[in-house]
């Protein structure tokens, strides 16, 4: 089971009302390499992976939900009280027509989230390599969004999230080593 905690993992701030940035950021909400994909991928793969890495998939998957909430908070703050006119100017007219200022699981181009973004192959190496690739792709997405953002507070939060991708990638790489060498694990150190 999961327990909710009424706090963010990181104190998210944004500088200005800026629906255009929200439009780009939604990529990490409902996009292929976004936080929703990450959380659902790891929390689903864990049912068919060797016991010694189930804890890691559970913990990283859970942390991804905290990141999803951070992205939601950023989008919420960037669009809160934005008028239909401002939404339209930011290229969010199509979004507004369907959702008002509500969040929705789609990418920056409006494609709805789909389960075909994620895989569970049942093969531990195939799954962990997908997870490493997913972390690197998410890292790259954060870089491209940072390149377009002129909001210094938002960039602090985005830099935090980008750094988390690096740490997760590191842990998945270690998980591969543990799986590769299951019976001589004690020799590592």
């Amino acid at each position: 089971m999961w327990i909710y905690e009424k706090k963010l993992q990181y104190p998210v701030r944004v500088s200005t009302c800026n629906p255009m940035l929200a439009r780009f950021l939604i990529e990490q909400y409902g996009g292929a390499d976004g936080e929703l994909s990450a959380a659902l991928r790891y929390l689903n793969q864990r049912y068919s992976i060797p016991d010694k890495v189930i804890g890691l998939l559970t913990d990283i998957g859970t942390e991804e939900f905290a990141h999803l909430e951070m992205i939601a908070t950023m989008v919420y703050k960037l669009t809160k009280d934005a008028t239909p006119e401002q939404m339209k100017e930011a290229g969010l007219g199509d979004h507004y027509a369907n959702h008002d200022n509500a969040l929705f699981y789609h990418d920056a181009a409006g494609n709805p989230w789909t389960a075909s973004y994620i895989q569970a192959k049942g093969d531990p190496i195939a799954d962990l390599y997908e997870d490493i690739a997913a972390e690197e792709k998410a890292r790259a997405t954060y870089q491209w969004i940072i390149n377009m953002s002129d909001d210094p507070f938002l960039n602090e939060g985005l830099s935090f999230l980008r750094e988390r991708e690096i740490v997760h990638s590191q842990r998945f790489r270690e998980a591969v080593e543990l799986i590769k060498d299951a019976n001589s694990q004690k020799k590592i150190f």
Partner: protein
Amino acid sequence: MANKTLPDDYYQLLEEIQILDFTLVELNLYLDTHPDDLEAIKQFNTYTRKAKELRQQFEERFGPLMHFGHSYSTHPWAWNEPPWPWQV
């Protein structure tokens, strides 16, 4: 309620919890792949105790952080009270 502003120490205390919890997340992920590292486990347990104490302090002033029996409630039921994390 809508116009109620939060005192500075709401943010300060919250950030102290976020700081400790983040170190715990990092140690946790590290220990997932390094289950034999006794020093890291000791550090994890020390921070866990500190984080519990801070949580208790925060909840006494600003209400429950968690649901489903992981935090106590005052009367009336305190969980429904804003602010929610994205609102602060």
